[in-house]
């Protein structure tokens, strides 16, 4: 009886205390009176002047953009999970620790490289950050003059984020850092199952600090490709909304060069040149990874507006999902009816990702019908490209990274030059009017896109080749044949992915005939 009395007393005390706390303002369960003039920062509370209201409105506008950039950036970071799952699932169990450890460590490695000098090289001369408050401290671009035109090559401010202690710069850094890591993790797929971890480690720093930022500067940092419109009247210059060229083509070309230098996995090709299948060990995991990527891609593409107040983000997001759907269905049906007569789960994944990669550049500039068509083409393209790379070029790409990111990254940029409908992009790269593709009357834009793609392929393949060759001299790129047959988990990483689980390692590597 006594404890009930105590309980009732306690309830009374709580109820009284609660009513005291909320005594001055009535509770607002539907939110109708939450957020009023009294919430506007003002000298006289509740009576803001017009200037104070204007200041608050400006603050709120930038706040929406800032939150948008940060939250989409957080979600893009999760693409690291998607890549790890797709690549880990499509490779063999005996190398799973190694494959996952590469996908894991690329995140901190690339980030440190980007922190040291990558961000400075890429955005050191970008100028005022319009959607994030207009801070213009990133104002040093190294340029060379050719025929009276200044070609911006590389930014030179913001090493270690020094001298740019500004909220908008930090938001931009976070967002661009996670994009860089997306590029960095692409080659770990094409080079999986035979890449020495020490070589990968050095590559991880270099891709974030040098390889990615330089091309990124040319397109997004105010460099020469973005100024093709100003200098030569080619549309808006090379336009890449979310990174078909900057992120995916760069990653795809690196994946191609790396896989070419490493050579095929043991047992991949027979003596007559025909290819063996080396099935991945966890298709369900690869499919889960593809779902994660598809989800994060909304942030990747729509977030690239760098402005939550830019309502075009809904167009970008819908174009993204439609292109991924047509890409996945096209690749599935193409395999099912014209190739092996099976839907082929890993090709479904490649098709979905191909659609996403291809729509990444044009997502904000095209109609939804064009997006569907771009996805459809990319779904077929990715399969033909994967076959071409494997059977004609004899380059062993376990996950199809070259076909997905390289070929469709290039296609996405070109598609923008064809399908951009001219409704969006006024003022982009300092050019008035919307971005307009060839089919809507502006061949100059297509020319700028082709120059952007060509310069990416030339620059990245050369610097990639040099970097991989230098690393090869220092530590060697490829593991020994003995380690490769045994599986890289123990010799390279020290721990098996599935300790205590019996595996048939012999059957995992086909016998070359």
């Amino acid at each position, binding site marked *: 009886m006594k404890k009930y009395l105590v309980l009732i007393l306690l309830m009374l005390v709580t109820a009284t205390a609660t009513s005291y706390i909320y005594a001055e303002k009535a509770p607002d369960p539907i939110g109708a009176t939450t957020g009023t003039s009294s919430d506007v920062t003002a000298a006289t509370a509740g009576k803001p002047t017009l200037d104070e209201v204007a200041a608050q409105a400006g603050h709120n506008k930038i706040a929406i953009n800032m939150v948008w950039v940060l939250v989409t950036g957080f979600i893009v970071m999760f693409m690291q999970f998607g890549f790890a799952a797709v690549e880990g699932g499509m490779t063999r169990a005996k190398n799973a620790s190694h494959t996952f450890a590469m996908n894991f460590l690329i995140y901190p490695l690339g980030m440190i490289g980007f922190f040291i000098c990558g961000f400075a090289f890429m955005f050191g001369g970008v100028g005022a950050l319009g959607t994030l408050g207009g801070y213009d401290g990133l104002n040093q671009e190294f340029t060379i003059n050719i025929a009276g035109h200044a070609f911006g090559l590389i930014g030179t401010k913001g090493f270690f984020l020094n001298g740019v202690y500004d909220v908008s710069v930090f938001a931009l850094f976070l967002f661009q850092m996670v994009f860089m890591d997306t590029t960095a993790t692409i080659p770990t797929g094409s080079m999986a199952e035979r890449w020495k971890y020490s070589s990968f480690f050095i590559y991880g720093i270099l891709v974030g600090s040098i390889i990615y930022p330089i091309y990124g500067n040319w397109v997004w940092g105010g460099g020469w490709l973005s100024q093709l419109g100003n200098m030569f009247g080619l549309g808006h210059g090379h336009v890449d909304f979310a990174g078909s060229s900057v992120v995916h083509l760069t990653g795809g070309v690196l994946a191609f060069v790396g896989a070419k230098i490493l050579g095929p996995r043991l047992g991949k090709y027979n003596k007559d040149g025909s290819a*063996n*299948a080396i099935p991945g060990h966890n298709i369900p995991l690869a499919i889960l990874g593809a779902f994660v990527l598809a989800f994060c891609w909304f942030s990747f593409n729509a977030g690239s507006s760098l402005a939550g107040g830019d309502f075009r983000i809904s167009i970008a997001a819908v174009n993204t999902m439609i292109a991924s759907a047509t890409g996945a269905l096209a690749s599935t049906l193409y395999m099912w009816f014209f*190739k092996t007569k099976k839907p082929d789960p890993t090709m479904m994944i490649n098709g979905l990702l191909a659609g996403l990669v291809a729509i990444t550049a044009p997502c904000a500039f095209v109609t939804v019908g064009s997006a569907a068509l771009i996805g459809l083409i990319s779904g077929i393209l990715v399969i033909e490209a994967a076959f071409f790379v494997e059977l004609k070029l004899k380059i062993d790409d376990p996950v199809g990274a070259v076909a997905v990111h390289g070929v469709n990254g290039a296609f996405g940029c070109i598609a923008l030059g064809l399908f951009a409908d001219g409704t969006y992009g006024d003022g982009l790269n300092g050019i008035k009017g919307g971005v307009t593709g060839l089919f809507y009357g502006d061949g100059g834009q297509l020319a700028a896109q082709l120059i952007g793609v060509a310069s990416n392929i030339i620059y990245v393949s050369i610097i990639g080749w040099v970097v991989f060759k230098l690393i090869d001299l220092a530590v060697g790129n490829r593991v020994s044949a003995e380690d490769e047959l045994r599986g890289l988990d123990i010799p390279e990483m020290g721990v098996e992915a599935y300790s205590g689980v019996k595996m048939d390692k012999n059957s995992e590597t086909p016998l070359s005939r």
Partner: protein
Amino acid sequence: MKKIEAIIRTSKFSEVQTALREAGIDFFTYADVTGVGNEINKGEHTYRGTIYDTSYIPRQLLTIVVRDINVQKTVDAVLKAAQTGVVGDGKIFVSTIDDSYRIRNGEKGDTSLYNKED
């Protein structure tokens, strides 16, 4: 005392087990085994556009040690239950066992192969 080793299709395992029990054979050892052979590539396995055969064939290996009087009915039970008539049904090998012991009590010879209550 004979040892009967039967390599059978994995899909036939439970049928064979039932047939053996009906024939009065309750004890045997089995293992998952892998072999190679001239299995025809039926195009069932495809991965990333390549049709392939796995180059290994999964089967089950049953090891049954029985008294001489039970040899024929054991062989008959396996033959009947494991047969599909298609290439790849497996093999049965019969060999002589010199002796056997029951570890629990050191019993020797035929009596170590079955429970006395039977």
